[in-house]
């Protein structure tokens, strides 16, 4: 690989001893060869790691921008996938809510057999929607492994020493942390985009449907204040 990343802070290189304090600029190469698929995008993606000229800042900033991009692309594809199977999800959710509520109603009149029957059907419907959600989640997450694969070929030898310990973390831990940050930030700003606002309204409808599910707590007598 011709490109190198320069770190100028506390650092830990797998192949050498732990060092600390301001360091001379040291090239750190990855030991993982870059896949052909990334060679096309590599020159563009590495520009994200040269935004300020300060190596450490660039590493975190570049990784954060990639994490945010992965989050936004994932949100877009997952919302499109959701719209494509909306009818199916609506049907399963209705079924789930209906049988769940019936099971609770059966309990209120002391009909144990009907409770068991309705509970089984509610769980079947829950299973359907659960696995549907599992596969739809792939639409949200697919950009993440691609970013990680690229980072693996770029930064697999980069490790940061955890302060006051002998432990170190690599690119994976940094990315996951920044992806969580990107998730929280994007959650707050996405409703300013009309498309995501519309999606949020649709999702709010589902949450309302879910709230219509009765629980055993609904059977409890009201608390006396």
């Amino acid at each position, binding site marked *: 690989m011709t490109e190198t990343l320069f770190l100028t802070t506390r650092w830990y290189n797998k192949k050498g001893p732990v060092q600390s304090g301001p360091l001379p600029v040291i090239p750190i190469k990855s030991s993982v*060869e870059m896949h052909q698929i990334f060679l096309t995008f590599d020159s563009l993606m590495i520009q994200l790691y040269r935004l300020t000229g300060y190596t450490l800042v660039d590493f975190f900033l570049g990784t954060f921008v990639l994490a945010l991009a992965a989050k936004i692309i994932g949100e877009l594809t997952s919302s499109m996938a959701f719209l494509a199977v909306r009818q199916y999800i609506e049907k399963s959710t209705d079924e789930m809510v209906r049988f769940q509520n019936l099971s609770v109603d059966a309990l209120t009149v*002391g009909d144990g057999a009907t409770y068991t029957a309705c509970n*089984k059907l509610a769980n079947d419907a829950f299973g359907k929607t659960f696995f*549907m959600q599992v596969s*739809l989640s792939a*639409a*949200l997450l697919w950009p993440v492994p691609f970013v990680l694969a690229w980072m693996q070929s770029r930064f697999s030898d980069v490790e940061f020493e955890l302060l006051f310990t002998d432990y170190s973390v690599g690119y994976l831990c940094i990315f996951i942390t920044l992806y969580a940050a990107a998730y929280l930030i994007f959650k707050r700003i996405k409703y300013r985009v009309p498309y995501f606002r519309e999606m949020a309204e649709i999702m709010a409808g589902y949450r309302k449907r879910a709230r219509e599910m009765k629980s*055993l707590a609904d059977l409890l007598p009201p608390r006396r204040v």
Partner: protein
Amino acid sequence: MTKKSWIMISLVVAAAIAATLVTAFPADAGKLEDAIAKTPQGVEKGMIDQSAPPGFMGIPGAPRTFWLYGILWGIWVGWIFSSVGAFGGVMAGVGHITVFGLADYGNTFKQTNPTLNKLLTDSIRVCNQYLVGLSAVISSLTYYRMGRLVLPLGLCLAGGGILGAYLVPVLTAGKINLSMYVGYFGLVVFAVAGVLFYETTPRGQASKKAAKAAAKAFEDANIRKTTAGSEQAAEWARGVHVTQWGLTKIVFTFYGAEFSFNPIWPIIGGFVISAISAFIGVGGGFLYVPFLTSIAGLPMFIVAGTSALAVLVSMITSIFSYMFLKSVPVDFLLIGTELIGIFIGSILGPVTSKNIPEVWLKRLFVVLALYVGIGYLTKGFLGKSLLPGM
């Protein structure tokens, strides 16, 4: 969800991470490179040819999956997830073990470099877990928001889950060779086939029909009355009694219907389920749900929330343990292409389910599961698959 619930769930997640980090030791850097370096160099089986193009995890000469095959297999997995359910997770594993040729490749190192053989086993496990587990975590979060969690029960499950998901990677990573792994995977496939088969039998079908009939009859006869007046509902509600509350048994009744569970069972259940999930490399949601409904007999709204919490906590612990404690490498590119396929497949599932009856889909997968199960069991424990293609 209340603020208290958020605080509690944050505490549980933090405990899972802390459990891993507290016991952490410096990562075994360069594990894969070391294993490759210690393997005999050459072009024969069980050797590594450094001049060969890199394949799985960048190993020279390892099977190299054309990206389109990853997507196509993902479509198949996603389609099964959205049409039949848990069997999709099994198929994700079959892809890594058989279709992409990783088990056969790993087995060539059984004699020449057992470390590389076991490292490939761990990598397959983590790839399975990434593929299925991460998606399961997202959907679990959704259900957690929807469901109404019984926190003490969820915490009992999660407590056992953390232990299982921590111990299995720590005790077995680097120790399970591919043959053993394939054999145990075959056992799990048989278990899934058994459940699917029961659902297709006349008895399984009849119980579902009977349940639907009972639900319909109840709906027609009682539902209007039940919701008719709040006074009457309040009168019924006064029949709720917690009759026993203790460390060994919690009992509550509703007008004659009695529920009870021993808190130790969720802990043991959580431990066993998360241990199996971490060992095979799956999410575990498909085991938590039947455990909570069939064994504990709990209502659906409790199951949704508690299984979500349990999956979330045990997945975080397991992936952290594999990745950070044991430095197991994964092929992110393969996972990425498969995820694209899964999301395409998840859209196709509802389309085809309109035209193919669910029972016939299940029958098809019973046959497939039996084939895979027999193939893997014989390959893993007898050394050679009785069936071709495995």
